[in-house]
């Protein structure tokens, strides 16, 4: 249409808001990480980044974050796909199952962290209570006090809370697959598994990538769940980057150090999201 220039006017409020409350702080954070802005003695230095490379606590947190995101996102996609397939069938009381399936996602992650923390609590928690009552264990297990178990517990909790998001995206993808394709496959004598492999999966690939990228971004930004469930402990065993950056910035006042960590995280996320952004540029979403 001839008034296409008006499009800019419609975009303008959102654009200005984002520049002010997102763009500016982001730039400021980068400057802070180089010790240039809002620090006591501004002078350009890459000292914060050099220190990062040698800080075992940071490297551990980076590793934790990668492991955490990998496991949690995989489980989200696996459980999400399973439940989406179930919900896409002709089952009775569909609405009820669907409500139950999405319920964990409505719980704020901080709250979820608290509930799971109490479930795993050594003495009055339900997990140990069930284990002792059923005789599966004779003494209470210190779930959140052992590094491996604590890490597993946090991952389990976040798998629980976050999967409905992936499930919703995948369910939407499933519902969009034309019935004719299944019918054609049936005529060719395909088994249920073959139909899944040759009809469902290829059709779902696109949504799968979307779910994968979006969920990876969500989980990398996770803060509240770990904050309330373990606070990063015991020791550094469940410390993730967001938590460490927050602590450096707001607890120990190492401003440029905390900012540098966040910049590293943001850079990693940017590269992870590149395929998604490329899809956007090609107008595929």
């Amino acid at each position, binding site marked *: 249409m001839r008034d296409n220039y008006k499009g800019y006017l419609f975009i303008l409020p959102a654009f200005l808001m984002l520049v002010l409350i997102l763009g500016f702080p982001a730039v400021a954070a980068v400057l802070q990480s180089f010790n240039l802005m809002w620090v006591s003695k501004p002078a350009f230095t890459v000292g914060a980044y050099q220190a990062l490379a040698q800080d075992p606590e940071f490297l551990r947190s980076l590793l934790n974050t990668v492991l955490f995101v990998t496991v949690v996102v995989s489980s989200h996609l696996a459980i999400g796909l399973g439940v989406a397939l179930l919900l896409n069938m002709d089952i009775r009381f569909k609405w009820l199952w669907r409500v139950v399936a999405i319920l964990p996602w409505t719980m704020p992650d901080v709250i979820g962290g608290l509930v799971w923390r109490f479930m795993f609590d050594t003495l009055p928690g339900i997990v140990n209570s069930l284990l002792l009552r059923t005789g599966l264990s004779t003494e209470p297990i210190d779930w959140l006090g052992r*590094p491996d178990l604590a890490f597993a517990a946090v991952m389990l909790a976040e798998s629980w809370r976050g999967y409905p998001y992936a499930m919703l995206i995948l369910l939407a993808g499933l519902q969009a697959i034309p019935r004719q394709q299944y019918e054609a496959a049936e005529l060719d004598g395909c088994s249920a598994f073959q139909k899944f492999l040759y009809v469902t999966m290829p059709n779902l690939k696109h949504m799968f990538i979307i779910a994968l990228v979006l969920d990876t971004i969500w989980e990398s930004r996770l803060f509240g769940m770990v904050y309330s469930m373990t606070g990063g402990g*015991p020791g550094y065993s469940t410390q993730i980057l967001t938590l460490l950056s927050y602590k450096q910035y707001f607890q120990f006042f190492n401003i440029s150090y905390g900012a540098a960590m966040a910049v590293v995280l943001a850079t990693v996320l940017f590269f992870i999201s590149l395929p998604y952004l490329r899809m956007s540029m090609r107008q595929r979403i």
Partner: protein
Amino acid sequence: MSDKFIKGLSRAAAAVSFGCVLAAGVAPAAAADVTITYSDWQLAQDIWGKSLKEAFAEFEKQNPGIKVATEPVALAQRDVKFTTAIRAGAGPDVFALDMNPVKQYIAEGWVKDLTPFIEKEGGKKFLDDFYARSTGPLTEAGKTYGVPKNIVAMVLVYNEAMFKEAGIQKVPETWDDFRAAMKTLTKSTKAGGPVDQWGWTIVAAKAGFDLRFSVILRGFGGDFLTPDGKKSALDSPAAKEAFKYVVDMIQNDKTMPPGVAQVDANGARRMLANKQIAVKIGTTWSLPEVSGMNPALDGWKVLKMAHIPQKTVDGSSVRSTLYQKSLFMNPNTKNPEAAWKLIKFMTEAKQMQRWFDDNNMLSARKSVNETYKPIAESPFAVTVAKEIDRAAFLPLTPKWPEILETFRVNLQDAIAKSKSPEEALANAHNQVNAILARP
């Protein structure tokens, strides 16, 4: 508030239609009264909170025109909250701190210099009634930044009935005896059931860790820093022994309930109240607290106190840690005069007496401890008062909060078996030195 809000918003996002956000503007308070905000982690506690609120009611009656608004805060989050707010030009007018972060607050300018107010009250005369050990750490270069309120030392608080039931006649005075006694106390109360009674617990979560671990370190003759406060002393044999002692009792003896890493001061109290443990490190405040949690325990009768064990008992060396609560003024306060009135009121002899009556807490004023009869007659007060002479504050350096947290995380690593005790302690030693070396 409304004006500020609109101005701020229009600066930040002029182009945005913000009618909906207007709901967020809170109606401004009537400006006739001065309101002083007071924040204290003990406000959230039933017993302590109650006496604080009674004191404020009395204060408001004495000072018409001044209102006190209270802001409870969790101990573990206290310093993050205070410092974030103060750096942003906000925060409570008056707040309470224990000794841990005091030097940091002074160094960073997060507390107001109270010297001019104290001068008006008579200067030295005003301060003279407080113990020198109490006012000393609140003073920097001749300026006084806070007024002390309570001071106590840490001791063992134990359940005498459980000791007797386990056949322990004498309270252990050495760490070896203590360890043996804890083994005796750890057992199952139901024949054939899982272990459900343990000897004791330390506090390894953030809230209260400082006071509980440090006494073990000191009871072994060690400390965190060298006497000049410039280097870590965690490589000393005593420190190694104490560290290993604690880790061994958790991992090998299992005389503490599993889940030590999550136990904070309050969790330990709860376990003592539930008779899940028989001993904890505490002080005068433990009695009203623990008794209040479980009236069936009959805490005032059953709980007893003893000094912190030592490697070999001697008559003079430091074996305990001092706790002091002091009051401070926010440099951002808009009503310094009224804030000072509140600080002065709260640290008057009369309020100190109330603090003992309600909370069993000793005063930082000599006159109160020496002349107030209930204190002289309380066996708990007497035990703790004696230990004050055998106790010291934790290191008084601005870096202390970060050092403490670094140490705690390393201890957790050892408890969790991520590292061996030796490795974790060496790690803590190096990290502490690195923190101290930073400008």
